[in-house]
């Protein structure tokens, strides 16, 4: 279980995000929402330990993560970055095996046991067929799945994912998110991920955390946090939320952005200008 208690983070003396508190249990998926530039990445880097926090506590199973050294931290928290290409065309299985690095001595190389764990991770993500492919030649969505597999091979309790759906096409976004949800449910891990899509948060998150334009932090259930007012205030768009019953019999909540014009004024949607703009 991850407990973040009242942390502030930033660079040097400049505080970017303050008063961040939340807890995350195994099997939960937390979506972090917020407009560009409010400090999502800063918060991420602080949780990952790559940025010194200014105040507060981060406890993992009751233990302060700051006391752990880099290798021990890597066995607890894994990072899934946005997929990018390394300068060398590594094989997919080698990329996933790299997730094992924190588990063996710095002077040695992975053993057959490590490769087996990596193969299991590929199987969990349903991408065994990519085993021998070159990581630089597969699609963006596949690359993202490989990085999730690498984090699984790391056998950490917490997976921190930086916009895993950005740069992906319509189908791959859903595929990646479905895989992530399956992993959360079956692999005894918890996941924090950032996204720019409130619909993804509504569909997949068990908790939603938001950082507002005023740097305020709040956390709660998805349907509590994502309201029309929130979308208007934070993203400056008029959006409507719907709850529908799909043909497959599922209850789905989603939002549709309508217009960004004069979104600051709440009654724009009832104004004559809006009615005109529809014609």
């Amino acid at each position, binding site marked *: 279980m991850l407990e973040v208690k009242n942390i502030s983070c930033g660079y040097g003396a400049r505080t970017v995000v303050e008063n961040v508190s939340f807890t995350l249990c195994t099997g939960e998926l937390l979506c972090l929402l917020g407009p560009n530039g409010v400090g999502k990445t800063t918060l991420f880097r602080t949780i990952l330990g790559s940025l010194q926090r200014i105040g507060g506590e981060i406890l993992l199973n009751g233990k302060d993560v700051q006391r752990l050294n*880099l290798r021990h931290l890597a066995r607890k928290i894994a990072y899934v970055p946005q997929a990018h*290409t*390394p*300068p*060398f065309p590594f094989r997919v299985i080698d990329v996933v095996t790299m997730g094992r690095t*924190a588990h063996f001595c*710095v002077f040695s190389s992975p053993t057959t046991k490590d490769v087996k764990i990596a193969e299991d991770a590929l199987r969990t993500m349903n991408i065994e067929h990519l085993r021998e492919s070159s990581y630089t030649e597969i699609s963006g969505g596949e690359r993202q799945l490989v990085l999730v597999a690498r984090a699984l091979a790391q056998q950490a309790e917490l997976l921190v994912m930086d916009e895993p759906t950005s740069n992906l096409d319509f189908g791959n976004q859903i595929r990646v998110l479905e895989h992530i949800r399956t992993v959360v449910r079956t692999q005894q891990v918890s996941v924090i991920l950032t996204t720019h899509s409130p619909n993804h948060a509504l569909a997949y998150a068990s908790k939603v955390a938001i950082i507002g334009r005023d740097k305020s932090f709040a956390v709660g259930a998805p349907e509590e946090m994502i309201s029309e007012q929130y979308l208007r205030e934070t993203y400056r768009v008029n959006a409507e939320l719907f709850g529908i019953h799909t043909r497959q019999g599922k209850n789905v909540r989603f939002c549709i952005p309508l217009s960004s014009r004069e979104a600051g004024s709440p009654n724009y949607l009832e104004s004559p200008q809006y009615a005109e703009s529809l014609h």
Partner: protein
Amino acid sequence: MLYRLTAAVFLLLALFVLSLTIGHFPVPPLTAMSILFSKFFALTPHWAPKMEIVILQVRLPRILAASLIGAGLSCSGAAYQGMFRNPMVSPDILGVSTGASFGAALSLYLCKSLVVTQLSAFVFGMIAVGITYMIGVLFSKGGVPILIMILSGIIVGTLFNSFISIVTLVADVNNTLPSITFWMMGSLATISINDIAVAAVPILFGMAGIVLLRWNLNVMAFGDEEARAMGVRTNLLRFFLVCFATLVTAAGVAIGGVISLVGLIVPHMARFVVGPNYRYLIPASIVMGAAFLLAVDDLTRILFLSEIPIGIVTSILGAPLFLYLLLRSRKGWV
């Protein structure tokens, strides 16, 4: 991967035997091997004493020098490429070789101790790669783009080249200048067994360090932030890897002069054979680097009657070979 690596080892062994027999003075392979083994086992000599001198004092030092320097340059080239996440760098492109040769020239001018030359080459090699890396970091926030690092390497190389010119200008024309000039041409012909004994220690030590840390180079290729999240202490490891790679390069330069392009081409040839995984790439670079320089040296011995510095030959052979590799391997890194 393993059987390809084994094949490369056998190729190197075959080249070693072949190199002993090549030259103006013919020695049959079996005799050559017997002469070599007679140093370790009691064998009754059935060969002319002249043969023994040719094998043990002329050819063997040269073969050992070519193998050691070739292995060292390739190993450090592959390591630099990984730790700087840049497939286009090598000891010569980063300015390390030039920095080291300035250090060596300076020590040849001031005093002629072999150990001091090694040390001075290492110190100035470290300074050169340090400056190149700093310029790279300063002019490109975050990651170090491929081109900026190459450009800063060129600047640093030019700078140290002009320092070398200053040393040759002030050097004593009768005494020190000839030895500096001769060494600078990068020839393997004059290397003695004693030189090799002194250079072998840092070269083998540095290569051993790189071999031990090689898996981390894979992880570092994904960038510092990701590598740290996977438990790799990037700054500490990069420091040690730079030290090892520079030690190896400097020791080679101090006995053989600047031998260009080996450290760039051989790692790429090794990638074609065993793939980019550093676990196999480093051993493959070592074996293939030794074989490459040995083959080039044999070629110069066969083709040219007069002694021609091997650095010239590697450049002439290396340039088109590198262009060919560039054309074949466009997998997103150019």
